[in-house]
């Protein structure tokens, strides 16, 4: 583009204009060169696979009859497929419970750690953050063992009081079993983000508040929380997207939970099963995109509602 504009530039121009044009061209080129490496990686590893998946999702491949173009049939199928819909319903329910829980725990811990500045607080901060440093897969396997009826500690602890331990891997309690694993893993991470945001608040504000007679509780609720609202929104969006794409924990615990977690437990697991064990890449891609649509709608709705409320938060 830039080359063309320069060539077309009218001839009888003063010398200075010409030079400036050359400088512009040079700057443009340099800019593209610097963006280039990122651009190539971005195109090759994000845009191209997405486009390819979208392309795949418009076809249908049958064992008999081969591949045919079906436009949006796969999407129609997805949104009428009980497996997909029940998966979506599960992750939405799970989000509604797990996100507020995680955020409340993270916020409470961040406020406490911000107010207390002993060596023990620093140690606690590290310990609360630690679960996030453990890979999800290892975390899930570990909890699988802790929940185990056969050799987990729960059985022993409840046995001491002559009670039967709850089986968090049974179909009735798997929701809470997963809830616990997710909260354990992520609350610490959100806590660090909120804690960092709290560190950025100007301490003179607290002093001013104290002079006006505000107590600790009032400082926390009236000053600290409103000031870190952007960080709160950020982690809410993170956790919403993450939870709607729930995959690792249930996929690992599947093998330990007797029939409580099916292959279509969450939409992502369903897409994985369709693509990689049933070789239905077309439908798998369609499910992924359909899930992407659900995530987009949920995040958009969330941002829309919080935008209004942020004024009095």
């Amino acid at each position, binding site marked *: 583009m830039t080359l063309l504009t320069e060539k077309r530039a009218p001839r009888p121009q003063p010398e200075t204009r010409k030079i400036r044009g050359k400088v512009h061209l*040079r700057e443009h080129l340099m800019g593209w060169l610097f963006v280039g490496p990122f651009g190539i990686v971005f195109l090759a590893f994000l845009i191209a696979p997405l486009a390819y998946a979208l392309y795949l999702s418009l076809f249908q491949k049958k064992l008999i009859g081969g591949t045919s173009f079906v436009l949006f049939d796969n999407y129609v199928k997805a949104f009428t497929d009980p497996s997909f819909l029940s998966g979506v319903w599960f992750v939405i329910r799970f989000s509604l419970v797990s996100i507020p829980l995680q955020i409340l725990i993270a916020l409470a811990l961040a406020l406490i750690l911000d107010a207390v500045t002993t060596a023990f607080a620093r140690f606690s901060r590290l310990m609360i953050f630690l679960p996030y440093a453990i890979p999800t897969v290892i975390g899930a396997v570990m909890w699988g063992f802790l929940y185990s009826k056969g050799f987990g500690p729960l059985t022993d602890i409840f046995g001491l009081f002559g009670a039967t331990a709850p089986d968090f891997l049974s179909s009735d309690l798997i929701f809470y079993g997963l809830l616990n694993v997710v909260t354990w893993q992520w609350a610490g991470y959100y806590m660090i983000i909120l804690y960092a945001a709290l560190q950025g608040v100007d301490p003179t504000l607290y002093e001013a508040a104290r002079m006006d007679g505000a107590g600790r509780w009032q400082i926390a609720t009236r000053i600290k929380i409103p000031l870190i609202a952007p960080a709160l929104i950020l982690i809410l969006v993170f956790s919403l997207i993450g939870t709607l794409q729930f995959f690792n924990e249930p996929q690992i615990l599947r093998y330990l939970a007797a029939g409580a977690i*099916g292959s279509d437990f969450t939409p992502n697991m369903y897409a994985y099963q369709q693509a*990689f064990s049933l070789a239905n890449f077309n439908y798998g891609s369609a499910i992924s995109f359909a899930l992407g649509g659900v995530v987009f709608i949920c995040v958009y709705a969330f941002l829309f509602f919080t935008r209004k409320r942020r004024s009095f938060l």
Partner: protein
Amino acid sequence: MKRRRILATVAMLAAGTGLVACSSDEGGSDASNCTNTITKQNVPVVTMWGWYPNTQLVVDNFNKQHDDVQVCWTNVGQGSDEYDKFQTAISAGTGAPDVIMVEADRIPTFQIQGALVDIKQYGFDAVKANYSEGAWKDVSVGDKVYGVPVDGGPVAMIYRKDIFDKYKITPPKTWAEYEQAAQKVKDAGGPLFGDFGANVPAVLMALQIQKGATPFTSDPAQPNAIGVKLNDQASKDVLDYWGGLAKKGLVGTQNQFTPEYISGVINGNYATYISAAWAPGYLTGAGVGKGQDTGKFAVAPLPQWDLANPVQVNWGGSAFSVTKQAKKPELAAKVAYGLYADKESLTDGWTNQIIFPLNLTALKDPAFVDLKVAFFGGQQANKEVYVPAADAYQGVQYAPFGQYYLDAMEKQVSEVIKGSVTGSQAADRLQEDVAKYAKEQGFTVQ
């Protein structure tokens, strides 16, 4: 200024070529990727995927005995893990090995996608007599042969002698007796009698077939048509039977092949284990029957529905198939025919109970038949139980969408375990589900 621009260009080009270099690296079949070491140079190499615990030895034996071809083996995972990778390679059109270990029930699934080679044209007649008719039937589709049988899985009832002695019961011969014995043990405060796991649909299918179910039927003349019959009375009866046992608390509902289940087996939480001939090897590997538990296990024939007309069934068992992506199918077929077919490898396989051999040279070997199996406390398990069961096995027609069928069955069995549906209802739902899938895939369902 100019120099900097050149530098930037160079940097960008370098980044670009780096990417190209990554993408052009095919990985493929060069000998450096083999798990085994190939010592003979300048000999054509055939790649192979497999997961027998003694594959290393089997491959080394083969390579030692052959000067015209060498095998390059990779273990890409067991069962589904391998199938998922193979499936991805089939879809991608590249990346599959030349020879692959598959369970017999998966062969139709890959065959219908055109992923396997009919090996009848590559020296089939020379080895035909080494296997029984039934063994060949399980690896064939129509009159074409898509695999070389290696091992089978005649199903029997493994049980704990100590538990049976304690509660004074003898091995049940029928399923009615099985339930009575389970009730007796439960009433006396004993452990669970068996396990009804959702994640082992293949053995449930075998038990349904035992009662007379024929889940899938097809006619080679009409490859687009398939008979799906998953809710006939026999199928319903078997699901109702196991669902009933679970509901009465006579059997557990734990997923099998999990640490939870194995720890239960070690603790003596299950009096019986309905499983195949390869199970002792698997259990031993998982730490069962060792130390103070040595010799506590024994095996008895599979309980029957009708003692006058006993039916034997099979669970698992595998074969070597040649893939369509093999560049030299004839050479690959030679490997498929020759691997795990030499006496040394077979003997290692059956003495360690890794395989129940289908190769008649091993199956008819008195040393194999008369073997006193250590896991079963010296019981002559092959002679008493497994060989008769294997001899009576008649082969099964598997589905060309086996993965979907087994996944769907797992889902329905989970519902039965939860108690949300009865066995009969589960069978009806399964029929509906699988028939719908078959239609979607372009089959005419009969």
